[in-house]
């Protein structure tokens, strides 16, 4: 290529904005803590030690799998200038499918796991395609349709595990247990095979974005969609592909949680930890850039685990970490230099 891409040259200059936004969010969060009668230094010390102390490290890594996964769900469309706000719905669709399929297969074991995960990926990918279809063939903005599609997915899943699919041996709203042989093998402590799978997916995105024609097209359409179309990139086909992959990764995350940790579909079990919103914020922090997004996802996952420790040690509610993350994103949105068509 004889011409350079300005946003690549500027990538290194974007890091400081991200860093000082994080710092500023901690300052604002500290003021909030002070005004509510808490000592910010004690709270933050508990936050850091909760995230990084050696005994908690496996927990942090286990928490990081879904957060990094949901970061990729948001980052890939973001890189192409699209917004997939339907990650939660796609996560639930994937988790539900992964909880149902093993119960109905005539065999168990490795093949059953692969088939369940593939079914979850395809189902969630197809659900995400609905939003892409709406925008491409009907002109419905994807950021609204993808968000609205969350509600039916979550509602129907909740209904299914409360009534037709309910595990009748318990009083909780959850589906029946998945057979032992159909569960993801554990590695160390809470870590299971899902973690290396997610690392592979993240690496695949890094490679795709940097080293392939598709990745170049992805970035080009993110910088300037009109120029990309003029340059011969088929935007509609790209949007379908991006949304299918994005939704598919959400489905993969759902299937890993169901097959590796919960062993069944628990109502609200996938959404209560806010993996989707956290991942979305991590992707925004890095502007969808692959390595940055993964780093931001790991950082936010560590913050959330630290938040659990903080809540235990200082009684400051752990949802504070979500406030800090939202403030970081807000500052980035306010102060990061805009990429415009003219640049």
């Amino acid at each position, binding site marked *: 290529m004889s011409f350079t891409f300005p946003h690549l040259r500027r990538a290194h200059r974007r890091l400081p904005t991200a860093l000082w936004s994080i710092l500023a969010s901690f300052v604002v969060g500290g003021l909030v803590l002070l005004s509510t009668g808490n000592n910010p230094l004690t709270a933050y010390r508990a936050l850091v030690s909760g995230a990084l102390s050696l005994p908690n490290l496996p927990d942090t890594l286990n928490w990081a799998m879904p957060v990094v996964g949901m970061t990729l769900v948001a980052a890939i469309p973001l890189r192409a200038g699209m917004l997939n706000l339907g990650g939660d719905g796609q996560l639930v669709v994937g988790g539900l499918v992964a909880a149902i399929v093993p119960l109905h297969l005539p065999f168990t074991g490795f093949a059953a796991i692969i088939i369940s995960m593939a079914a979850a990926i395809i189902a969630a990918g197809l659900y995400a395609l609905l939003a892409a279809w709406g925008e491409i063939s009907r002109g419905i903005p994807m950021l609204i349709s993808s968000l609205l599609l969350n509600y039916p997915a979550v509602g129907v899943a909740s209904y299914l595990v409360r009534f037709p699919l309910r595990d009748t041996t318990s009083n909780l709203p959850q589906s029946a247990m998945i057979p032992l042989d159909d569960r993801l093998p554990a590695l160390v402590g809470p870590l299971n095979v899902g973690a290396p799978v997610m690392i592979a997916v993240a690496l695949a995105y890094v490679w795709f974005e940097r080293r392939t024609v598709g990745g170049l097209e992805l970035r080009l359409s993110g910088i300037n969609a009109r120029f990309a179309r003029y340059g011969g990139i088929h935007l509609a086909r790209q949007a379908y592909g991006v949304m299918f992959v994005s939704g598919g990764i959400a489905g993969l995350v759902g299937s890993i949680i169901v097959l590796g940790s919960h062993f069944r579909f628990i109502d609200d079990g996938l959404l209560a930890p806010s993996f989707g919103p956290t991942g*979305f914020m991590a992707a925004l922090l890095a502007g969808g850039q692959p390595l940055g997004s993964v780093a931001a996802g790991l950082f936010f996952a560590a913050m959330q685990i630290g938040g659990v420790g903080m809540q235990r040690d200082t009684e400051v509610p752990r949802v504070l970490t979500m406030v800090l993350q939202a403030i970081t994103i807000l500052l980035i949105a306010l102060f990061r230099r805009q990429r415009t068509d003219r640049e």
Partner: protein
Amino acid sequence: MSNLFSVILLQATLQAMTPILLASLAGVLCARVGVFNMALEGQMLVGAFFAVVGSYYGGSALAGVAAALVAVLVFTLPLALGTTWLRGDNISICIALNLLASGLTSFLLRIVFGVSGTFSDPAILPIVKLRWLWLRNIPVAGILTWAQTPITFLSWALIGVVWFLLFRTPIGLRLRGVGERPDAAQALGVDVSRYRIVTVLGSSLLLGLAGAQLSLGTVSVFSEDMTAGRGWIALVAVMLARSDPLWAAAACLLFGFTDAIGLRLQSIGLPNQLTDITPYVITLIVIVLNSGRSSIRLRMR
């Protein structure tokens, strides 16, 4: 089936419509000055929370409404200043504000009231419902206006006010100019940034009212993420109406009706997990049926 469509249903429709209507009028105003306000959901949620705080500590519903108005105004400052002076990315700011509203209200719920999930207390005073006896005997109007809050009546009046402001006043002409051709408006001496800031902040007051109606209008309670997508449905109403306040109100009437139908279906025995999604499914169907006419950019940039 006959008692599914009763007058009571219409009354419930009007009740459910109020927050959505106020939010969509705010969305209309913002859209008219060229600010695509996707933060309606978060603004309403902040309003709902601080209405409960104000009512609980201030000892009156009026204090609750006042607290909601002030809180939403402050909360909206990043949007008003960010899209003008700072030239930030509108969509990112709105997404951040929605997540901030969700996190902040959950955090403050635990810090201020020491509970998670839902907070209800007899000390939260609800907004008084007007029961006008002189209207009582008029067949339909009597029942429709029975036991609605002043905010509901205000929201109906605001449909006309917003329409009149936009289409019959010099200020409205300038507002629309700022949205349609900001460079031309600037050239004619209209301060584009100032118009946008004032409009976004002014419209935020409507979201304060919407939030107060939500938490103090029917039951005095705050629960986490209680707006439950109403802000997004209001935004859909703005889009469907192409930023016309009268059509937006009509869309809100439809969405209020689907909300009321959902509640009605629940009362005849359908599980609430399914009835709760009625408004969203109908909204999606309506957008698809109405689609192909809107001209909205395909990518963020």
